[in-house]
């Protein structure tokens, strides 16, 4: 039997003329979300979270309530996007993130354990690096985090941006 998402079952060899509608109900949001791994967050997730917090923190200006922490929603969006990426690109990003996390100064200090000003210095050094992959790495995370930060309810326009111009 062929089980559709909506729970309708189709027998084998069923002529299509007799096939019931296979999509009578649109999927729910949770069905569209790429499931997060059930294991505890590791170095990769901690590093992504620290990068997101640093990018979001760089956007804080006085009086901007929507831009204040926590930024767990920003981290969740970025990690979700990473899981959606083509696998042959996601793994190089994963490796680069681990290299970035381990390369923090002083030696032996992980990126997510650095003080905020040190995190900024580290991200900035990769952002303006002469090495293209380092610049691309920062741009990748920075772009996603900025999209999520400025999509937060209450951030300029976005909370109310419910335009009907579909």
């Amino acid at each position: 039997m062929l089980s559709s998402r909506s729970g309708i079952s189709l027998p084998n060899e069923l002529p299509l003329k007799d096939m019931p509608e296979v999509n009578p109900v649109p999927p729910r949001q949770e069905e569209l979300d790429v499931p997060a791994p059930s294991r505890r967050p590791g170095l990769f997730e901690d590093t992504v979270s620290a990068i997101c917090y640093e990018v979001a923190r760089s956007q804080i200006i006085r009086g901007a309530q929507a831009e204040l922490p926590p930024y767990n929603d920003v981290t969740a969006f970025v990690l979700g996007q990473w899981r959606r990426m083509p696998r042959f690109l996601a793994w190089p990003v994963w490796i680069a993130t681990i290299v970035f996390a381990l390369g923090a100064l002083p030696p032996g200090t992980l990126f997510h354990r650095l003080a905020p000003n040190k995190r900024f210095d580290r991200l900035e050094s990769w952002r303006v690096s002469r090495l293209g992959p380092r610049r691309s790495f920062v741009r990748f995370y920075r772009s996603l985090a900025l999209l999520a930060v400025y999509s937060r309810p209450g951030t300029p326009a976005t909370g109310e941006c419910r335009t009907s111009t579909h």
Partner: protein
Amino acid sequence: MPNLDTLKTEVIVIGSGPGGSVTARVLAERGKDVLILEEGPDLPLESCVPFSIDEMRQKYRAGGLNPAMGPGLIAFVEACCVGGGSEINSALYHRTPDTILEEWRERFDLKETSPTDLSPHFHANEKTLSVGVMPGPPPLASLKLAEGAGRMGWRSIEVPRSFKYDSGFGPDGVPLGVRQSMTKTFVAQALRCGARLMSSCRVRQLRRSGNGWSVLATRGGRRIEISAGTVFVCAGALQTPLLLRRSGITRNVGNSLAMHPTVKVVAEFDEEVNHEQLGVPVHQVKEFSPRIGFGCSISSPPYLALALADYPGIAWQLRERWRHMAIYYAMITGPCTGRVRPVFDLPDPSIRYHLSDPDLRDLSTGMIRLSALLLAAGARRVYPSYRGAMPISGKDELSTIPGTLIADRAHVTTIHLFSSCPMGEDTSRCATDSVGRVHGVPNLIVNDASLLCTAPGVNPQGTIMALARRNALHFLGEL
């Protein structure tokens, strides 16, 4: 074999974007037994706010994180949902320029593709899509582009949209309404005519089966084999060549991908040009087309933040001045130098695209001219988007933009991809004949953006749909 379900139908249409949905409707309304297979989910147009991160999560392939590799990365987005690209685009509509059709006929030995041949197909689709210009003032950010073009003495046009304006007016008097995407029009009509839709169904391979085809697919973790007399492949300019190559059909397939490479410039004006319901700007500058064109982009704060990512200290301006800012683009008609190849059995192909020095020079020329236009329109400052860029406040500073953009510094993006299976009678360079039939392979028809011989220099949906209608009618013997 465990978990293998088998089905039979007369015609399978793979993909439900503009090409697939037109094909399905034409065939279904003439009584064909049609099954549409769509990899993405079946969602209503209203399932998310347009141009939002929810839309990225729900309707973009790979969340919108797809790059074409080359000397520099070119980021592109592609839809993966019922309705395809029409569910996420701006619904701007063009007919194919006559000069482009002439070039295709000459270079690719393309038959039955004159403006006169295609006119009835454009007309029929335009009626279904409610194509027309705004019945009121366009957005202010869009008018700025027209104003600047006028001051430069350049030609600009207001582009029609496939849109029903029936939802009142925005804060600046701009009419609001509903985009006429495929789920609103052709997919719905095809289903009413008896076509079947199987969404969230990924086609893995095509196999010859007698005079017809077996389509091997997976859905919800189960394998399906569907037999059909004829298969229309309408999966888009990347997935169509990927599927054909996986199925052993490789001649002139995936060797000539073309696109419209695009660079961005943010303009900041003294007056407000942006607001929560700005919608889609509709003006384009055609003075230098088809080689270079200008337009205005979606300019919500998340997109502004992205376009200004090269200016790290700009958070204050973004927060306080976003209503004075809008994003504009310079687009070139890119060469057919892209390659689409499978990566093992992974669902996404590897894409390589090479921008030559002349292309990068054109992008730079476009960025300089667009910046000059925006300054002429009254912008107090423009922010070109490339690594190392500086804000520009006057024409004398335009020389800070390099004469040739460096590939890995230019943040090139695109939303238009085509030409990976070009059509025509010239079998040395074309994958299909003039009506989409794959050369040397019976009962297999390509009917989507892959067919376009080269980049058309305009939004391609109108061209894709007209060709799809013509090819479907040709299959039915009605042309």
